């Protein structure tokens, strides 16, 4: 399975150095670090995902001695690896350029957002195609607006929940975040395996 992650690295070998270059430029112009990190993580991870979305890549991977479970799992483990790969240069860059060490809470925040995004994006893309993600998010927005008509104080309620979580005792709060993101990720992982096992090539 690690071979499959290595494969993603080989395939991205040419784009990764460019990404690194852009990353440093962004760091110099002082845009929000978290924002840059989140965008880069998602772009790299989805790029790796897209390369394997063609029918020929699916034909190849499934003809090699890998199970479908392994093929999906490699994407989920690989995503964590790519997060690490993006955060490391950002961490070092921030330290070298701005002389500041990133707080672990910021790193946790970035990782949670990216993992949360992946948890929805991967099963969705396995079910449809990643190129429909934009349309999908549009649909979610419409559903949200419709729900707002029936539950007018939805935004307030969400804010309330967030407030309650935030007001939790610090360690309990972070524990809750880590646990729920991890749970979401694992559930999404299982769901993706189920979707992918039924695919026809």
């Amino acid at each position, binding site marked *: 399975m690690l*071979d499959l992650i290595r494969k993603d690295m080989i395939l991205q070998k040419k784009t990764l150095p460019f990404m690194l270059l852009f990353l440093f430029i962004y760091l110099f112009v002082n845009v929000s670090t978290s924002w840059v990190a989140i965008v880069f993580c998602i772009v790299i991870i989805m790029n790796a995902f897209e390369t394997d979305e063609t029918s020929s890549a699916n034909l*190849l991977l499934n003809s090699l001695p890998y199970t479908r479970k392994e093929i999906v799992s490699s994407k989920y483990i690989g995503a964590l690896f790519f997060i690490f790969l993006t955060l490391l240069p950002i961490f070092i860059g921030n330290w070298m350029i701005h002389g500041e060490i990133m707080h672990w809470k910021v790193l946790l925040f970035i990782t949670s957002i990216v993992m949360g995004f992946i948890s929805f994006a991967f099963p969705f893309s396995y079910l449809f195609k990643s190129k429909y993600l934009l349309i999908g998010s549009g649909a979610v927005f419409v559903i949200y607006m419709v729900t707002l008509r029936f539950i007018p104080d939805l935004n307030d309620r969400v804010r309330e929940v967030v407030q309650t979580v935030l007001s939790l005792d610090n360690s309990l709060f972070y524990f809750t975040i880590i646990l729920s993101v991890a749970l979401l990720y694992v559930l999404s992982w299982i769901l993706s395996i189920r979707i992918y096992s039924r695919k026809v*090539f």
Partner: protein
Amino acid sequence: MESVIELQHVYKAFKGFELKDLSISVKKGFVTGFIGGNGAGKSTTIKLIMNLLQPDSGTISIFGMDLKKNEKEIKQRIGFVFDSNIFYENITLTEMKEIIKPAYRKWDDSLFDQYVDMFELPLKKNLKTFSKGMKMKASLTIALSHHAELIIMDEPTSGLDPIFRSELLDILRNLIQNGERTIFFSTHITTDLDRIADYITFIHNGQHIFTKEYYKIEEEFAIVKGGPNLLDRDTEQEFIGIRKTNHGFRALTANKQRIENIFGDTVIIEKPTLEDIMLYTKKGEERDARSYS
């Protein structure tokens, strides 16, 4: 005789197409040619064997093991070639090798180099710059570099020039010299099979028509030519398919001996080609369809 691939009562239905009760066995140590027209179900069958599709019912076993339960173990021992390019386009052959090599326990770099030399493949060029023939050679190189016991190919010769097709057939023939290796490949260029196939498996419209030793086909099947007056409702039943012209008929039989007994010297009997067999089977089916409707 030992079977390497064994399909038993396999059904698979898609919209507008189905494989019906397909039972095929492929013998170890031989070359089996898999023939059938476009849309007969050749690629679907190969995909079922590679576990790219799952059958709706029926069982598939390879090397005597159930495909569902031993997928990884089985695929370790298979080399595959598809009719379309399945490699990533933006990398070199060396990089492609680096991706595939760790998947196989028995990968052999010296074997890989040997085929790369033989096929004169460039290692440092992007795969997307390869011609169709080169892509096929690259596919074959990868398929042959891990000491596979079973080689499965879907239309490997389509789109190749005659010289390379001939080279390819020589290579395949050399591969099975020791009797341990089995080759199963689909094609619609039936003349390729004259030189190499020991067995022929023929499917038509998702149904298995026959699997026979090549030489037996020539013994059993025959093209029969005769005058129009020889055909009537009864004698027509003796043939798989008939083609009538103003001057007479040309028909295919699966029982040469019987035709000789019935018609004697009044007809001319010739050896059929595989193409004849495919063509007349289709014709016969159209006739049957008409008589039922």
